[in-house]
C-alpha cells in the first residue's frame, strides 16, 4: 500500500501532498517504504554526487576533421589543400594551427579548448568514424545513431539502448534528455527519453493569463485518475518532470566561475545542459546537435565558415567546462559527426563527403592531452578510395570504452549489436 493510496481519495490531493513534501523536503517524516514512487524518485535523484553523466554532441553535416585537428606534420596535407589549409604553428600567429604534440594542431578558432587539452581533460581521437562506406548524410547519420552501420532496419538508437542496459528502479523522468524539439534517432527506443527544446517551455501553456495552475491541475488529475495504464504512467512522469523543473526555476540561472556561453543555439543548449546537470534531477545521458558543417563551397581556412562554427563550438564547450567546475569529474562529453570530408579541397574552395573524422572526448576522468588512434597517413596511396582520410578506429570502440568505463555499461553487445567490442582494443581514453 503506497502513501498515494491513502492520500488521494479526493479529487486532487496527490498534487498538493507531493508538492508539499518536495517543498518542505519532508522526506524524513515518512519511511522510504511508505513513500510513493514519485517521492522515492525525487529522493533518489537529489543527492547522487557520484552519478556519472554522459553528453553526446552531434555535428550534423559532416565536419571537416582534417581542418579541425590539423595534421600539420603531413606535407601532403598542404599540397591537397592549397587555399584552405591551416598554416603550421607559428608563435604569435592567430591564423596558424595551435600545436598539440608536434604533429597535430587545433584549428585556431578552437583556442578556448587548448588549455583543456594541456590540463589533460580533453582527448582527441583521429581517423575514427563509421566503417560503412556510404557518402550519404542521411544514411551515415542513421548508422551513427542506430549504432549499426550498414543495417537500416534497426528501430532504436544506441543511446537509448545504453539507458536500457543499465536498468534503474525509479529512474528520473529526466534520465535521458535531448536538447531540441524532436527526439533524435539516437535516443529513440523503448527506454523513456525527453526532448526539451527549451527548459523554460517545459510546462503546460494555456492561452489565458493566470490559468496555468488550474489547467495543469486539471490535466494532472485526469491522468492520475485514468484507468489507462500507459497514459497514467506517462502522465505521472510528465507532471513530475514539470514539477522538478519548476523547482529548478530555469529563468533564474546564472553560470558559475565566470563562464560565458555563446548566444548561439548550441551555446544556449550547452548552458541548459549545465543547468540540468547541476539541478540534480537525475539526468544521466544528454544529447545535443549542431548543424552547418557541410561546407562544399568556400569552407575557409583560419577564417571563414568552418572557423565561425568552430568558434561557437570551442567557446561553448569551454564555457560548459568552466561552468561545471568540479562537477566535470562526473561528466564526459563526446563529439561525433557522420563522416569526414575529402582530403583534397574541391574546385569551390570547399571539401566534399569523405570518410574518417576526429572525435573530441572531454571530462574529468578522461586521459586527455593526447591525440589517440593510429594515424593512417595522408600520402596519396594511404587515402581511402584515393580521396579521404582512412579509418583506423571504429566509433563504436570509442563509445564502447566511454560507456563501459565512464558509466558502467556491462552489456555492450546490446548497445552495439554485431560489433565485437574488445576491451583489449580500447584506446585508454578513460582513467581506470
Amino acid at each position, binding site marked *: 500500500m503506497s502513501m498515494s493510496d491513502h492520500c488521494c481519495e479526493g479529487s486532487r490531493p496527490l498534487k498538493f501532498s507531493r508538492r508539499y513534501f518536495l517543498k518542505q523536503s519532508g522526506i524524513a517524516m515518512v519511511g522510504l517504504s511508505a513513500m510513493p514512487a514519485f517521492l522515492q524518485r525525487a529522493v533518489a535523484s537529489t543527492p547522487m554526487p557520484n552519478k556519472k553523466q554522459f553528453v553526446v554532441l552531434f555535428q550534423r553535416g559532416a565536419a571537416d576533421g582534417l581542418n579541425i585537428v590539423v595534421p600539420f606534420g603531413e606535407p601532403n596535407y598542404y599540397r591537397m589543400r592549397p587555399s584552405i589549409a591551416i598554416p603550421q604553428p607559428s608563435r604569435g600567429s592567430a591564423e596558424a594551427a595551435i600545436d598539440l604534440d608536434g604533429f597535430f594542431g587545433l584549428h585556431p578558432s578552437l583556442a578556448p579548448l587548448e588549455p583543456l587539452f594541456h590540463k589533460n581533460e580533453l582527448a582527441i581521437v583521429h581517423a575514427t568514424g563509421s566503417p560503412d562506406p556510404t557518402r550519404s548524410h542521411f544514411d551515415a547519420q542513421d548508422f551513427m545513431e542506430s549504432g549499426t552501420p550498414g543495417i537500416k532496419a534497426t528501430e532504436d538508437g544506441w543511446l537509448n539502448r545504453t539507458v536500457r542496459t543499465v536498468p534503474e528502479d525509479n529512474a528520473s523522468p529526466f534520465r535521458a534528455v535531448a536538447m531540441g524539439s524532436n527526439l533524435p534517432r539516437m535516443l529513440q527506443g523503448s527506454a523513456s527519453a525527453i526532448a526539451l527544446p527549451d527548459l523554460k517551455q517545459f510546462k503546460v501553456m494555456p*492561452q489565458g493569463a493566470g490559468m496555468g495552475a488550474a489547467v495543469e491541475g486539471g490535466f494532472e488529475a485526469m491522468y492520475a485518475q485514468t484507468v489507462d495504464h500507459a497514459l497514467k504512467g506517462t*502522465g505521472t512522469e510528465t507532471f513530475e518532470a514539470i514539477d522538478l523543473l519548476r523547482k529548478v526555476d530555469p529563468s533564474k540561472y546564472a553560470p558559475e566561475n565566470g563562464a560565458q556561453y555563446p548566444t548561439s543555439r548550441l551555446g544556449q543548449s550547452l548552458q541548459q545542459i549545465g543547468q540540468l546537470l547541476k539541478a540534480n534531477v537525475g539526468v544521466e545521458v544528454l544529447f545535443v546537435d549542431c548543424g552547418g558543417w557541410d561546407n562544399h563551397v568556400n569552407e575557409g581556412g583560419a577564417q571563414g565558415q568552418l572557423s565561425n562554427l568552430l568558434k561557437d563550438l570551442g567557446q561553448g564547450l569551454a564555457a560548459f567546462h568552466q561552468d561545471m567546475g568540479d562537477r566535470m569529474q562526473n561528466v564526459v562529453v563526446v563529439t561525433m559527426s557522420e563522416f569526414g570530408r575529402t582530403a583534397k579541397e574541391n574546385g569551390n574552395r570547399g571539401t566534399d563527403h569523405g570518410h574518417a573524422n576526429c572525435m573530441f572526448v572531454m571530462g574529468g576522468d578522461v586521459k586527455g592531452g593526447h591525440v589517440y588512434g593510429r594515424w593512417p597517413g595522408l600520402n596519396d596511396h594511404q587515402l581511402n578510395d584515393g580521396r579521404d582520410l582512412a579509418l583506423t578506429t571504429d566509433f563504436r570502440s570509442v563509445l564502447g570504452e566511454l560507456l563501459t568505463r565512464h558509466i558502467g555499461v556491462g552489456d555492450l553487445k546490446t548497445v552495439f549489436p554485431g560489433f565485437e567490442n574488445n576491451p583489449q582494443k580500447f584506446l585508454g581514453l578513460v582513467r581506470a
Partner: protein
Amino acid sequence: MTEVARCFTGWTIDKPREIAQFKFDERLHDPDPKLVLGKKIHADGMKDGEEVIELLAHNPNTAKFISTKLARRFVSDAPPAALVARMQQTFESSDGDIRAVMKTMIYSPEFWSRDAYRAKIKTPFELVISAARALATDVDTPMPLVQWTGRIGEPLYQCQPPTGYSDKADAWVNTGALLNRLNYSLALAGNKVRGSRTDVPALLGMDSSTDAKAALDRGVQLFLGGETGPSTVATLQKELENPQVLQAKLDDPVRQIDLGVVAGLVLGAPEFQRR
C-alpha cells in the same frame, strides 16, 4: 537480398518523367541462375521476378507477417495469437485474399472484445487531425499543424528506418510527447495555431458561460462522445471554478469561463488520446 535484386534486373519505368509506365528491358536483365530462399530461380527474363513474388506470397511467414500487421493496426498492439493464427489460415486458404483476411478479423470475437475496445493510442498525426476535426477547425495554412505533428513525435515523411513509423503505443507515449499533445489541444482550441481558426463558443452552443459544469458536460459530450470517467467533469469543474480562472471584464461583472480552455482540457483528456 542481392539475389532477389538480380531477379528483378530489367524491371524499370519507361520515360519516368512522362508517362511513367512499367517496362521490362531484356537488355538490363541478368540471365544467370539465382538462388532465393533455397530455391533456384532460372525462369528466364521477366518471369524471374514473377517467380520471386510467387515464392514470397506463398511463404507462410508472409501470411503471418501481414496478418500480424493487420491485427496490430485494427485490434490491439499485442493482438491475440489465436486471432492472428486464424487470419493467417484464411490468408493461406484464400491464396492471399486480403478482403477475406479482413473478414476473418472483423467477424472474430476478439475484434469485438472489451479488451480491444479503443485499445489503440492515436498516432501524433491522428491526434492532430482528430482534434482539428472535433473542433471543426477551419484550416487555411496546414504547415503549423504539420509542425505540431512533428513536435508530438511524428515528423511527417521523415521516418528514418524504411520499416515506417511504429504502429505501437510505446513509440508515441513519452513524457515530452504527452506534454506537447496537451499544449497542442490548448493552442488549437485557444486559437493560437497560425492559419487555423476555431469557433469554440459556436461549437459548444453557448456564447459565454458562467457555469463550468454545463460547458464541460457539453465538451465531454461533443469530443469524447460522453465517454469519460465519472470524476473527470467534477475534477475539471473544481479547477475551473477557481476564482483566478474566472475572467472578470470591466463591463461585465459576472465572471466567465474561458470556453477555449474548456475545449482544450477536454481534448487533452486521456480518453481523447485513444482511437
